């Protein structure tokens, strides 16, 4: 899995961390949780892809995006379009006025499949689209903004506006998108019924596998010179520019990477949960995803994963008993994290737990360079804002 010898890709403590997470997700949780609960974890893990992207984009590069739901949604919708077409075969839809098109189109008096739905008959195209469509969208947005040196709070606000715009667009274009209900009643993936318990368990493991692969990718990026340039940019953007780098290209890259990661999460969400709707695209889910990252620790790849699991677990258990209070709780949690431990759970771990564990792993505690600490945090917009 990893190269041996003096490699800068993964340090021993990273490998231990990834191994512990892998054992937890692949062995401990499947053995201890019933199917119903395990499916919840699978759903939470799809958000972890977004959190992972935010660690790179926000934690390392200092680019706060409040619109990651857009990319999660684009990935999810791409997958949902494929599944919906498969579920809308002529036999399945023969009671419709126009058989062979998705039911919601029929209800909206659309008699022909729109051109942009056509390619989603093919699984191969769909998988590529899941990764590429959000990246292209992120590229256009990122290129337009970063070349003009829009950053910090302004960037965050614009991404938030994008989340709102896309939601309105999806809801408004009911005939093409399924509107507010989203794309529902998804059944099979190339003939394989995704609604059964066994399918859901398999999808859970696929999701974990993809997440672990994404984590390795994130570590690779972090440990490359590009990772250090991102940190340098967050700190002294001008110095990077005057060292001969085109700063905007690096920002566009990391923004696109975060978008693609989020989209994988979205596609896995559609597969595991069985539908996709605009409620995962808008402002509220986008901000929630930032909160997962903040709670877990925006400078820690693994921290963000645990943060996502923990906040979602709390959300599920709390909102079962106090549905009205949950959003206040979430808001309070975010404020508390920003004010009291800006580096999240991972920061607490590194300050209090890691030094004690150090002797066990023979020097693993020497983490001075493990995660570059945050710039003095005031609010949630990091230093690169200036």
């Amino acid at each position, binding site marked *: 899995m990893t190269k041996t010898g003096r490699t*800068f890709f993964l340090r021993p403590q990273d490998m231990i961390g990834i191994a512990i997470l892998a054992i937890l997700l692949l062995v401990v949780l499947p053995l201890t949780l019933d199917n119903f609960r395990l499916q919840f974890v699978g759903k939470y893990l799809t958000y972890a892809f977004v959190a992972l992207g935010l660690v790179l984009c926000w934690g390392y590069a200092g680019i706060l995006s409040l619109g990651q739901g857009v990319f999660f949604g684009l990935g999810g919708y791409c997958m949902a379009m494929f599944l919906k077409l498969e579920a809308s075969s002529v036999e399945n839809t023969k009671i419709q006025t126009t058989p062979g098109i998705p039911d919601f189109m029929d209800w909206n008096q659309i008699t022909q499949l729109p051109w942009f739905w056509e390619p989603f008959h093919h699984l191969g195209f769909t998988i590529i689209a899941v990764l590429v469509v959000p990246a292209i969208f992120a590229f256009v947005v990122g290129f337009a903004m970063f070349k003009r040196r829009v950053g910090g709070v302004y960037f965050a606000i614009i991404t938030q506006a994008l989340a709102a715009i896309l939601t309105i667009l999806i809801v408004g274009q009911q005939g093409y998108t399924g509107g507010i209900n989203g794309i529902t009643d998804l059944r099979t993936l190339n003939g394989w019924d995704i609604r059964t318990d066994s399918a859901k368990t398999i999808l859970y493991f696929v999701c974990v596998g993809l997440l672990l692969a994404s984590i390795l990718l994130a570590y690779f*990026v972090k440990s*490359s*010179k*590009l990772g*250090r*340039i991102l*940190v*340098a940019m*967050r*700190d*002294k953007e*001008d*110095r*990077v*520019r*005057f*060292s*001969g*780098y*085109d*700063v905007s*290209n*690096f920002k566009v*890259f990391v923004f696109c990477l975060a978008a693609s990661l989020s989209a994988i999460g979205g596609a896995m969400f559609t597969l595991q949960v069985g539908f996709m709707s605009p409620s995962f695209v808008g402002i509220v889910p986008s901000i929630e995803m930032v909160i997962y990252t903040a709670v877990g620790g925006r400078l820690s790849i693994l921290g963000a994963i645990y943060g996502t699991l923990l906040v979602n677990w709390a959300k599920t258990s709390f909102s079962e008993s106090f549905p009205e209070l949950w959003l206040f709780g979430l808001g309070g949690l975010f404020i508390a994290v920003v004010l009291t431990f800006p580096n999240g759970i991972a920061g607490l771990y590194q300050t209090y737990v890691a030094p004690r564990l150090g002797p066990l792993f023979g020097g693993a505690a020497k983490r*001075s*360079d493990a995660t*570059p*600490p945050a*710039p003095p945090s005031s609010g949630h917009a990091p230093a690169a804002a200036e």
Partner: protein
Amino acid sequence: MNTPVITDTMNKDFVLAVEGLTVSFDGFKAVNDLSFYVDENEIRVIIGPNGAGKTTVLDLICGRTKATTGSIKFKDQELTRMKEHEIVRAGVGRKFQNPSIYEDLTVFENLEISYPKGRSVVGALTFRRDAPVKERVQEIAEMIFLADQLDQRAEYLSHGQKQWLEIGMLLIQDPELLMLDEPVAGMSVSERKKTAELLHTIIKNRSVIVIEHDMKFVEDIAHKVTVLHQGKILSEGPMAKVQADPKVIEVYLGH
């Protein structure tokens, strides 16, 4: 945007030719019709009272500020039309007034990022920390007195060491034109001495523009001095001539 081209045959030998340079911020001309030329291997010091436009001149040359009119030619390339990173790649290095280093990274990493290789996105992803990189970083670190601090995080360096580190980050780029904005400001006496020594070794084989207030230091290193006042040249020439200029004494050297 372009003024009538004043190019004549004489600017062929200059590393840097600034002609008719003007920048105005909301009508205020911070630099006003400025022309000066820097020779190969020349050390030029720019002095002048606060607000004279010294730092703005460096900002204009390195592309941080866009000129309103005028031309800046660096080895026959028009810098006013280039982006910052292109200017750097053409061979112009700039040190900022306040030490501008990456506090979250180690001294080694600071120098490594400045190493002129792997400057594209793909290049940075595939960049290897190979022997030539390590050797060059080591070599520069020894020059800037930081060889035993390579693994230290830059935020823990003293003010003087941070200034040296930034100078080192420029040296590793090996620029043909080096611009230093107050390199000894805020340094202790011993650090100042070491810096002067450092500057004497690094100015070989390149042209240097220095902004400095410390007159002893200026006297020590300058080949030629340009005195700026209200965005214009007040006087220019060898140190002795400038020091004797009554206009300079009145507005700057004083008393």
